[in-house]
């Protein structure tokens, strides 16, 4: 069923408005609930809490799980056994390197946008009782919250996101390799980064993760200025991370820049899709629920 009766006020809530909201939890709720209401009776249900089986009551079981209706019908004590909500660990990998702090033509920086995206995903996962974890990294892992489905865990993730401070240089491949080595069960890894790193390194890290049986979704966040390079007049372009400088006339290098950007994007798409990794590039000036829609779309297709 197509999406109907969307709540436009929330569905197209501008990231700038979200950014002004007080806390990360509120931001996440705003985005997700807006999205959910917009996808009323949507086929994209994602991970649902699934009923597994009944088993006989054993002393020591939680009485709250006792199914009184079955007892009324059969005069036997059964407890409802739900499928383990931790059957899917979702790891949110958020790049917090300096390049993520860049804010050109968008109302928020890539880091803010990525944080809201991560919080929104965490909120959504939490509502679906999936275990969600958070890894913030630059060239190394700066913060890590293990995946958990506990109700209070969402708050911990949101709190961690709020307290994130920008890191240093980025090295996306390295934390990916570390995570791949650490994961022991089927998981979902969501990488939120600008991927302005050496593409081969990034791809190797992601492939390593994928080869470990992990589902991977990659959100590449790019600022409108990075996407369109709208600068005028000669400028000394200074790399935020490496402090490298290049003096260039935008009118002269715009074409080559866009071409290189497109090549990089095509490379990621080609390499990642090839190993079953979903790759999505997001414009940080666009509403955030697009990102969630893309995420669910990708997941449904994976299903």
């Amino acid at each position, binding site marked *: 069923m197509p999406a109907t009766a969307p709540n436009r006020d929330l569905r197209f809530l501008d990231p700038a408005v979200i950014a002004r909201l007080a806390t990360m939890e509120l931001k996440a709720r705003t985005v997700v609930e807006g999205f959910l209401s917009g996808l009323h009776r949507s086929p994209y249900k994602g991970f649902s809490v699934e009923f597994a089986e009944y088993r006989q009551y054993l002393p020591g079981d939680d009485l709250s799980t006792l199914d009184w209706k079955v007892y009324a019908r059969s005069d036997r004590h059964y407890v409802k056994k739900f499928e383990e909500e931790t059957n899917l660990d979702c790891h949110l990998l958020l790049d917090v390197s300096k*390049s993520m702090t*860049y804010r050109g033509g968008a109302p928020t920086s890539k880091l803010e946008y990525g944080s809201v995206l991560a919080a929104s995903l965490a909120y959504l996962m939490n509502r679906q009782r999936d275990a969600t974890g958070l890894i913030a990294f630059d060239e190394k892992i700066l913060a890590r919250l293990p995946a958990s489905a506990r109700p209070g865990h969402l708050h911990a993730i949101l709190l961690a996101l709020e307290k994130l401070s920008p890191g240093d240089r980025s090295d996306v491949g390295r934390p990916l390799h570390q995570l791949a080595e650490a994961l022991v069960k089927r998981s979902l890894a969501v990488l939120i980064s*600008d991927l*302005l790193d050496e593409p081969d390194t990034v791809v190797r890290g992601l492939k390593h993760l994928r080869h470990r049986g992990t589902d991977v979704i990659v959100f590449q966040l790019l*600022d409108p*200025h*990075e996407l369109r390079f709208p*600068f005028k*007049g*000669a*400028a*000394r*372009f*200074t*790399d*935020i*991370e*490496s402090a*490298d*400088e*290049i*003096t*260039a*006339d935008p009118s*002269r*290098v715009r074409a*080559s*820049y866009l071409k*290189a*950007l497109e090549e*990089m994007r095509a490379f990621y798409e080609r390499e990642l899709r090839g190993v079953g990794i979903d790759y999505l590039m997001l414009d940080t000036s666009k509403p955030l629920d697009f990102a969630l829609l893309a995420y669910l779309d990708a997941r449904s297709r994976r299903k």
Partner: protein
Amino acid sequence: MSFLSPLYLVGAALIALPIVLHLLRRDVAPPLPFTAVRLLRVSPIERSRRRRLRDILLLLARVAALLLLAGSFARPYLAGARSSTRTTVIAIDRSLSMSAPGVMERARALARQAVDEAGADRVLVIAFDQRADVVAPTGAAADARLAIDEITPSFAATRYASAFDKASDLLPDQSPGRLVIVGDLQRSGFDGSTAALPQEIDLAVRDAGGASSNLAVTEIRPETRRLLATIRNFGAAPRETDVRLEVAGRTEVTRRVTVPPAASLDVPFDNMASRAAVDVAVSDPDGFSGDNVRYALTDPRGRPRVLIVVGGPGSTSGFYLARALEAEDESGTGFAVRTAHGPEFAAMTPADVAQYSVIAILSTHGLDRRVRDSLRTFLGAGGGLLIAAAPDVDPSVLSTVLDWQPALVARDRGDAGVLAVSDLRHPIFRPFDAVAANLGQVSFQHAWQLQPGGSWRVIASYTQGMPALVERAAAQGRIVLFTSDLDRRWNDFPLHPAFVPFAQETVRYLGARAPETAGYLVADVPAGVPARPGIIQAEGRTLAVNVDVRESDIDRVTPAEFAALIARAPARPSSQPARAAEEAESRQGYWRYGLMLLLVALVAECFVGSR
């Protein structure tokens, strides 16, 4: 390269501005934080090099524009260019003395020869007498020769100083200059003026020769009942000549005289003093032609001319007044009197009327509104008006033509009594002395009784108390009203001894305007009067214009004496270099090219800057 206004070059220091900006902002690209710098490593080096080239071109264009602006305002000129060519000024004497036979022709030939000798020099030709004029500016030799051929003698005297001053002005400073004087080298040309020539100007003197003898009429003096003409022989031999006295171009008297060498002779012409304008001429084919005739006004402005306005034709009115005014005093100078009837006076133009110092109105017959304009002009110029009451004088007509407000109101009154002078110190009565008492013997049977009013001042009254002689100011002039008759109809005043001095002093008082010069030398004539000898009517005046008698002297100097008489100034006045520089700069006009190049530089700057 020199500059007329070098201070403007200080403005060239502004070129430091773009240079400093260029150095300080060598990399004009501002820093711009960015993330995907690694994707920019495509062609920055090539771009930067091109930009540096553009910056240098921009810098050059801006520096050039500022330099050209400052340089143009400083008005550059090539000082060295002036010294490459010498300037020769050929000064030809065109004074009266050059009118001697053959002298001017010789002078022209010598001047043409000087043009030929000038070779590659730039040649200027000036003609001088008491002033010097450029007749051929710097140009082709053919133009100079043509201008020389057109020079003719004038009537002015020689003043070498005028030629030297003009040459000093024309010859550029700090460049070789040469002055060639061509003339008869008349000694009187040095008279009364200091002839000085800057030392750096070479002087060459060309003697065109002169007259060996010259007769000149040097003076005409009116004396009692005769005119005295002075004839001078400047030559070394006695000269016999006819002396003619001419009136209005017609010979009245001819005298044959012999004038001793280097001496003057007075030639009297009896019974000619009453002629208004005369000329005396001698025959002198060998001398200067301009001084053979001299003009004189025997009735100059200092002797008041009186116009008596009387009734219609046949009227004897004005007889006594005219006779009284024509009576000569001890000095032999009376008044020039003319009697005109009313219509004749009314037909006169303001210029005609202005020739008179005093107008006496004894009748208002024939006067109309035209008289009002003439009298207004006449009084405005300081003329005097005498009005005498008489049976044919209408007070209302007087009030009309004289714009009197309120109008004059007078009525006849009999038995006025005798004259009683109120103020013997008045200029009219001051010279009476012994005859003052005679005024009391005159009985006035009739007189006007004036109504009070107006701005009359009483000078004399009758014993019956009525004003007899009153005056009032009118513009710059003066009006005197005698309230009784001057034609012996209302009194017997003309028969008394006091009448003549009364009439003369009244007219003299009324005509006491500032005496005007009626005799001029050719070089001194007022503006608008032609500079030639003769009796000349100009602006309602009659002028006698004559040549300067000093020019009649044939005494000459040799070229060596001539050179010795000139004071050689050691250096030019300080203003000369500046003026010469200004002329050189004006001639070259490099600033125009500078501004054009400035425009080119600005266009180039715009073009390069927009790339």
